């Protein structure tokens, strides 16, 4: 609902305050990780959802891939149907 964007945790800035630098396509911002209930150091390299300077959730890469795969399968089916349609038209 509100603007939130995925970013990669690249470095811990403050252990006590649970602050880390998060990278979005080369742009970095300090983000508060306190809502994630995990050790900031353990999160380095993982992707999180950033909203108003806080990480709301960790991105589940497997789920992301699964979703994409589903979409790609649908895409392949569609391309297949289009091909069949074109080929049948030629005949």
């Amino acid at each position, binding site marked *: *609902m*509100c603007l939130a964007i995925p970013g990669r945790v690249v470095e811990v800035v403050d252990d006590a305050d649970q602050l880390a630098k998060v990278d979005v396509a*080369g*742009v970095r911002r300090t983000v508060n990780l306190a809502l994630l209930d995990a050790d900031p150091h353990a999160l380095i390299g993982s992707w999180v959802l*950033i909203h108003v300077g806080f990480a709301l959730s960790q991105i589940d890469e497997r789920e992301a891939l699964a979703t994409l795969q589903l979409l790609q399968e649908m895409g392949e089916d569609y391309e297949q149907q289009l091909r069949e349609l074109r080929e049948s038209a030629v005949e």
Partner: protein
Amino acid sequence: MSGATRQERIGEIVQRTRARPARFRDEHITMAHGAGGKASQSLIEGLLLPALRNDALAALGDAGTIAVDGVRLALSTDSFVVTPIRFPGGSIGELAVNGTVNDLAVSGARPLALTLSLVLEEGLPADELRAEIDAIALAAAAAGVQVIAGDTKVVERGHADRMYACTTGVGVLDPRAELSTSALCPGDRILVSGAVGEHGMAIMLARDEFALEADIRSDTRSLWPAVDALLDAAGADVHCMRDATRGGVASALNELARASGVAALVREREVPVAPAVAGACELLGIDPLYVANEGKLVAFVAPARARAALDALRAVAGCEQAADVGEVLAEPPGMVLVDTAFGGRRVMDLLAGDPLPRIC
């Protein structure tokens, strides 16, 4: 009355309302009036034009043209109030030179000379002033212009945000140029001279309001070499050019579509944007097409010469990423449409005010 008919009627009413000259009805000036969007438009069309009334101004080009003994001159002026005065990729002095040089250039005039007006804040360190004067000298030399007159004022501490700079420039209209804001033709290709949104994002980052770090630098530079190349390659087939400053490419397209009574169609996928600019815009919820540039132009070129024009542009230093991003359509007049990278189509209107980051 069916739903669809009402929708179309409302669309038409909105179109007609937008096509009328904007009225200026605000009680106070707000920051929106300086943003290059609708509020700025209402100030220009609703207050300045009616009061100052003349054809040169009414063309609302980047420069005003005037003929003196058969010589066509172009005159332009620009004030710079940017804060902070130094930022990645440039400084206020550089902007002051290139800003006016570019307004002249995109109007088809080779820039010749500038005047420079400075308003300095009491307490400004001499070193900072020195640095800006050096920047101005360098930029002027790079742009091939001379600063031939000027003025300096000082105001009390707390005003002028360190310094404001205003430049006015004069140039001679190039014989190859036949440019006009009302010359856009259906079928014209829309060219941009490089990646968009760099200046505005550089400033936004430098201001530290959002505590973002990124390697984004202002793109401030003279556009005369780009204009020269375009005029050389396509001459009178370049119908119009604009410096895409405040309000970005989107605002420039909207203003020109309005002036020519045509539509502009942009293919989002073709618009060059640097990854870091795209990332910063995503984070803040801004569209890069609305972000200010200080070294980019949009050009409208007849289709027959568009390829040659693009190739010539790409050969100019700093314009390697120039691209053909769309075309002019006859309808709907005054509107800018975008074919999104996803395949849908939408309108790209002038912003009502400042591109405030969308947060929630």
